[in-house]
């Protein structure tokens, strides 16, 4: 008898617990005349890849506020609903489901990473909702899915930019050192695939863990094959350790990095070891160095100033992805009356949008929309970036 009572009690507690989830208010309606457009944001705001998600979240807030100040879209205000997925695919799936089902958003921006994006994609396809990812992986837009777009420059472009520079230096043999996660893996794939067209041979490809403490063993292994250059592909702080290790080992082979470290933080972390490193970056990092004729310059300067004013922190190279996504969405929303198919078509037909990451030209077969001009090559000299023509 006692046991039944206990178990019944337990069940009551459980039922209450579950019921409590349903009571949490999903959101509060704003009081504009026309109903606001709800846009979902999904970024890895905390967790190991927060360096991506955090500025993306801030930039989304910034873009939404700018649009609302300017009177919204056809009188509709934008409302951002932003969740954190911590870079965990399971959490991303839950959060995306919440955005679609509970918050009834009309479009989703994010997630920040390739795996989280891939995890969310089946749901987005089923719900038929415009979706603009902020992740770099090429798998996201190839093959093209009608509902899936992305604003971050693909690895393909970054690799092409690096390889074009390598070719101009008449380098033939390269060694690769990539981080053992989705970012590094995707980069490695492109680096290996594109080597032949540029007349390059990969003599050795090594990897390192994103929390590794010392990479001299990998570098030693690569050095054995005497490459003309080493390409390192990762995000901070790993590549900074690589740069330091190469300096310590007294290796003079030129080091190339990926756009993953394109932030002032890298120079700060690597210190003198950063000297002479060459890397591709979106133009945001070198705004002041750009010629005035550059069509992106004004957009970049405005964004930098607004970000600085709103958050009092220096602008990051990654926040632009979500800023672009919102701007593109806003253009597509214009005149769509919130109809999802119309938004989708709006994005697909958008041409010549000048954004932070480049100039976007979408088409039914091209859902990233960026060309090779999205990247510029820079060299670090005296602790400063320097444009390479």
């Amino acid at each position: 008898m006692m046991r039944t009572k206990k178990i019944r009690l337990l069940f009551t507690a459980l039922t209450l617990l579950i019921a409590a989830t349903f009571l949490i208010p999903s959101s509060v309606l704003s009081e504009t005349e026309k109903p606001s457009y709800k846009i979902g944001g999904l970024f890895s705001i905390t967790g190991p890849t927060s360096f991506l998600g955090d500025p993306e979240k801030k930039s989304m807030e910034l873009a939404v506020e700018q649009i609302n100040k300017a009177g919204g879209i056809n009188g509709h205000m934008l409302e951002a609903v932003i969740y954190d997925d911590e870079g965990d695919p399971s959490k991303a799936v839950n959060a995306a489901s919440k955005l679609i089902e509970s918050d009834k958003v009309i479009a989703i921006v994010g997630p920040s990473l390739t795996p989280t994006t891939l995890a969310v994609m089946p749901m987005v396809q089923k719900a038929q909702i415009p979706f603009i990812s902020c992740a770099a992986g090429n798998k996201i837009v190839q093959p093209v899915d009608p509902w899936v777009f992305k604003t971050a420059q693909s690895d393909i472009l970054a690799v092409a930019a690096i390889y074009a520079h390598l070719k101009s230096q008449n380098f033939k043999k390269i060694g690769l050192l990539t981080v053992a996660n989705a970012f590094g893996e995707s980069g490695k794939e492109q680096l290996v695939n594109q080597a032949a067209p540029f007349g390059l041979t990969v003599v050795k490809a090594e990897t390192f863990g994103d929390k590794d403490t010392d990479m001299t063993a990998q570098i030693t292994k690569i050095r054995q094959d005497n490459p003309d250059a080493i390409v390192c592909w990762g995000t901070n702080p790993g590549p900074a350790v690589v740069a330091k290790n190469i300096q310590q080992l007294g290796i003079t082979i030129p080091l190339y990095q990926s756009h993953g470290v394109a932030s002032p933080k890298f120079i700060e972390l690597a210190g003198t070891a950063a000297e002479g490193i060459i890397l591709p970056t979106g133009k945001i990092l070198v705004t002041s160095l750009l010629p005035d004729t550059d069509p992106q310059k004004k957009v970049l300067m405005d964004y930098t100033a607004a970000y600085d004013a709103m958050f009092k922190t220096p602008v990051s190279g990654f926040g632009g992805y979500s800023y672009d996504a919102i701007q593109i969405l806003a253009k597509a929303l214009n005149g769509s009356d919130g109809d999802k198919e119309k938004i989708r078509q709006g994005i697909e037909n958008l041409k010549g949008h000048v954004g932070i990451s480049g100039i976007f030209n979408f088409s039914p077969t091209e859902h990233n929309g960026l060309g090779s001009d999205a990247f510029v090559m820079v060299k670090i000299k005296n602790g400063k970036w320097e444009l390479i023509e």
Partner: protein
Amino acid sequence: MRVQILYSFFILMVALAGHFISNAYYLQVLTFIGINTLLALGLNMLMGYAGQISLGHAAFYGIGAYATAILTVHFSWSPWLALPVAIAAAVMVAYIVGVPTLKLSGYYLGMGTLGFGMIINIIFREWSSVTGGASGFVGIPALSLGPVSFSSRQNYLYLVWGCVLLCIVLCRRIIDSRVGRALRAIHDGEKAAAAVGVDTQKLKLQVFVLSAGMSALAGFLYAHLVCFISPETFSFIMSIRMVTMVVIGGMASIWGSLLGASLLTLLPEWLHAFSEFEMVVYGLILMIVMIFLPKGLTRGILDIVERSRRSL
């Protein structure tokens, strides 16, 4: 008789939830609770009853998920055919690993299972031609059985909770039998259990294998729910989360596993509201629960109820 009533109540609850909740997000969260309950249940058999800790159980979860993914995508098998193979794969790995590992004890057993979990996770990540590598495995088909499609959240909820019920019945029956008594005996005192004729080594291995099988089932259900898997999901962190579910819910308590899994699935959803403070609050809750209810929520709540009743 009493048990039948309880099971009927359980079925009723699931049916009601499936019938009245139309918001797919809530259904999905409930489905995740079900999957986590399977994981906690399996691990609880090992930790709560056989008294053996495992810090690498996410590996079996992953083996189940990757096995079905590989079979259904690369070899175009039917998922229903892949299910027994996925479970068999986990069971076999558990057997091979269990024989030497279960000879260890205490923290060394924790270390041994942890190392095993790391190795399996690295295999998922590095064998990219088969597993899709760090970016993950895409294109896992949704489940369907004849005319019934499980791509609707309702049906999937029923499927997952059906499996949960099946496993609860299974565990209950084992616990209430000669084998279960021997298991509880091992937990109370391994020396005495051996002295009454229990082959502790063999029994521990059997339970290890059983819990691996249940984790693999959970992995199968996860893979076909999300239709995407990546090594991240089956990392060391997940193993720790599983242990936490068991301990928070209550060791050696079947309903405790349900409670622990519910709490640890719902907590992050609730804590979204804290944004930046989420981690701090989550850590605090874990600590506070363990400090004040060290026997887990089930026992802890029952104790409190009992005490208040006595004081009345």
